[in-house]
C-alpha cells in the first residue's frame, strides 16, 4: 500500500517537473514580449508595447512573415494537389512493385531535405537558375514533403469504399470528375491534415531557406529570427521574444481553424 502511494507521489512529481520544463519556455514566450528589457527569467510583465513597436520598425521582420506565408502556402497547395492525384492513382491501380516504390520514395525523401543532399541540391538550384528564388525553394520543399504526404493520403484513399466511384463511373463520370466530385470531398479531412502538416513543416524550416535564399528581402521568418542581435552581438531578447510570438500565432490559429472546420468525417450512404 505505502509502496503504491509512494509510487503515485513519485509519478506525479515527475509529471509536474516535466510539465514545468515544457511550460516555462511557453510562459516566457507570452510574458517576455510585454516586458521592458526582458531576460531569460519569467517575470510578471509590465505590459509595455515598446517591443512590438520595435518589431514593426525592423525593416525585414514583418515582410519575412509574409515570405513565410508565401513559402508555406505555396508548398502546401502543391503538396496537396500532387499528393492527392498520386495517392488516388496508387490506391486504385494495381501496379507490380507499388508498395516497394512507395517505401523507396519515403526513404529517399528524408535524404532530399536532409543535410546529405545539401550540396547537390545547391548546385542543382544554381544550374537551374533557381537560387535565391522563392519558387525554387517551394519546389524543393514540395519534393521533400511529397512522399510522406502520398503515403499518408494513400491510406485515406484505401479506406474509402470503391462503390462510390464505381457508381459515378456508371453514370459516365471521367476519372478527373470522379476525383473532384467524389474522392476529394470524401478524403477532405485527410487533405486538410496534409495541408496543415505541410504548412507547419515549411513554416518551421530554417536550413533550406537559409541556404537557398541569400536576399534578405526574400527570407522567411525562421531565417530572420536568426539575425536579431543587439549591436553588441548579444541576442536581442525583446525583439526575439516579440517576433517569436508573432511567428507562432499564425500556426496556432491555423490548427484551430482547420480542426474546427474539418475535424469531422462524413458518414452514411453506404449501408453496412
Amino acid at each position, binding site marked *: 500500500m505505502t509502496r503504491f502511494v509512494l509510487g503515485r507521489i513519485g509519478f506525479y512529481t515527475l509529471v509536474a517537473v516535466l510539465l514545468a520544463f515544457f511550460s516555462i519556455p511557453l510562459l516566457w514566450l507570452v510574458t517576455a514580449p510585454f516586458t521592458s528589457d526582458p531576460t531569460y527569467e519569467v517575470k510578471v510583465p509590465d505590459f509595455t508595447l515598446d517591443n512590438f513597436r520595435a518589431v514593426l520598425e525592423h525593416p525585414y521582420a514583418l515582410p519575412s512573415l509574409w515570405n513565410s506565408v508565401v513559402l508555406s502556402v505555396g508548398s502546401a497547395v502543391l503538396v496537396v494537389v500532387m499528393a492527392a492525384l498520386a495517392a488516388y492513382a496508387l490506391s486504385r491501380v494495381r501496379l507490380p512493385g507499388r508498395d516497394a516504390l512507395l517505401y523507396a520514395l519515403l526513404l529517399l525523401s528524408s535524404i532530399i531535405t536532409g543535410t546529405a543532399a545539401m550540396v547537390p541540391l545547391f548546385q542543382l538550384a544554381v544550374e537551374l537558375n533557381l537560387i535565391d528564388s522563392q519558387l525554387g525553394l517551394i519546389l524543393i520543399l514540395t519534393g521533400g514533403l511529397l512522399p510522406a504526404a502520398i503515403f499518408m493520403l494513400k491510406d485515406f484513399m484505401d479506406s474509402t*469504399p470503391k*462503390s*462510390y466511384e*464505381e*457508381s*459515378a*463511373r*456508371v*453514370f*459516365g*463520370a*471521367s476519372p478527373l*470528375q470522379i476525383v473532384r*466530385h*467524389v474522392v476529394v*470531398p*470524401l478524403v*477532405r479531412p485527410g487533405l486538410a491534415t496534409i495541408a496543415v502538416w505541410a504548412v507547419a513543416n515549411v513554416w518551421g524550416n530554417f536550413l533550406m531557406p537559409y541556404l537557398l535564399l541569400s536576399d534578405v528581402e526574400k527570407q522567411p521568418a525562421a531565417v530572420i529570427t536568426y539575425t536579431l542581435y543587439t549591436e553588441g552581438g548579444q541576442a536581442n531578447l525583446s525583439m526575439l521574444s516579440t517576433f517569436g510570438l508573432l511567428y507562432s500565432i499564425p500556426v496556432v490559429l491555423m490548427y484551430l481553424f482547420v480542426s474546427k472546420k474539418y475535424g469531422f468525417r*462524413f*458518414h*452514411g*450512404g*453506404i*449501408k*453496412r
Partner: protein
Amino acid sequence: MAAIELRGLTKVYPGGVKALDALDLAIPDGEFFALLGPSGCGKTTLLRTIAGLETASGGSVVIGERDVTALQPGARDVAMVFQDYALFPHMDVTDNIAYPLRIKKVAKAARHEKAAEVGARLGLDHLMDRRPGQLSGGQQQRVALARVMATQAQAYLFDEPLSNLDARLRLEARTFLKKLQRELGVTTVFVTHDQAEALAMADRMAVMESGHIRQIGTPAEVFQRPANTFVASFIGSTPMNLLDGVARGDTLEVAGCKVAVPVSAEGRVPDGTAIVYGVRPEYMTYSAEPADGAFGGKVAIVENLGASHLVTLDVGDVIVQAVVPEGSEPLVGDDGYALPRRDRALVYRDGELV
C-alpha cells in the same frame, strides 16, 4: 429502352476464378428479369460485366443494337443500384439524385427540378435537403432508385437492392419496385439470392450455379418444372422432396414404396432406369389412412408454417415432407401417408428433367 443480349460471356478473375462460364442470355426490351443463385455463383459479376465495371474475358454484351463489350461503363447507357447504395455522403438528396444529370452537363436549375420531380414520385419530397447519413435504410434505397431513374438509361441493373431492408419493409419495397418498373417499362436486371423475391417480382428469371445458368423461365415454370435437381432443390420455400428410385414397368419404386409414374414422364422412363423422383411438399396429400401409391412412414417432425404445417415422415431411411393444412396436422409418432399429385410430380434422370 433496350434489350440486353449476352453471347458466350466469360469472366475469369485474375487468379483463375472462372466466375462466368460462356453464358448466353437474352432479355427482351422492358422485361423485369431476376438473376437468382446461391452466394458466389457469379450474379454480381454478371451484373458488373454488363455495366462494364468488369471487362469480359470472352464473349460479348449487346445492349439495344450496340455491342458494348469494349465500351466504358459511362458509355453503355445503363444505370446501376449497388448493394450498398453508394449514395455520395457529402451531397444532399437533391444533389445525389441530380448527379447523373450533372455529369451530362444539365444546368443546375433544370437538374434540380428533375430531381425534385423524381424525388416526389418516390415520396422523398420532405427529405430532399438531408444527407444520406440522416436517412433510414428504406429511404436510402429510394434515393438510390431515384438517382437511377433520373438517368433515363436504356437498362437498369439492381444488385440485391432489398437485401438491406428488414423483412417488413422488404415486402413493401418489393411491391413498390415491381409497380415502378411496370410504369417505367425499362429493361431491368435484378440480382437476388432470395428466391421468394425472384418468384414474386420477375417476369422471367435465371437460376445460376457456379458461373452457369441452370434454368431460364417464368417464375411459374421454374417453380413448377425445375429443369434439373439443382434448381429443384434451390427453389421453393420448403425444399422439394428428391428421392432416389428405379423404374419398374409402369410404376416407380421410390424409397421402398410403389408410386405411379408422373404425367410428365409417362412412357419416357424405360424399365430399370435409375431416376430421382421429385415432388414438392405442397403437392402432397397427407392422410392417416394407407393409400395406393403413397409414401407411408412415421411422423418425425411437425413444423408450423403459419396457415399450414410441414410434416416430415421417416420412410425407410429417407425422409419425405408434406404440407398439411391447418387443423388436420398429425402428432409426432403417428403413422402417416403422403400421396404425391401425379400431375405435379417430376422425374429426373442424370440430374435433368425427363
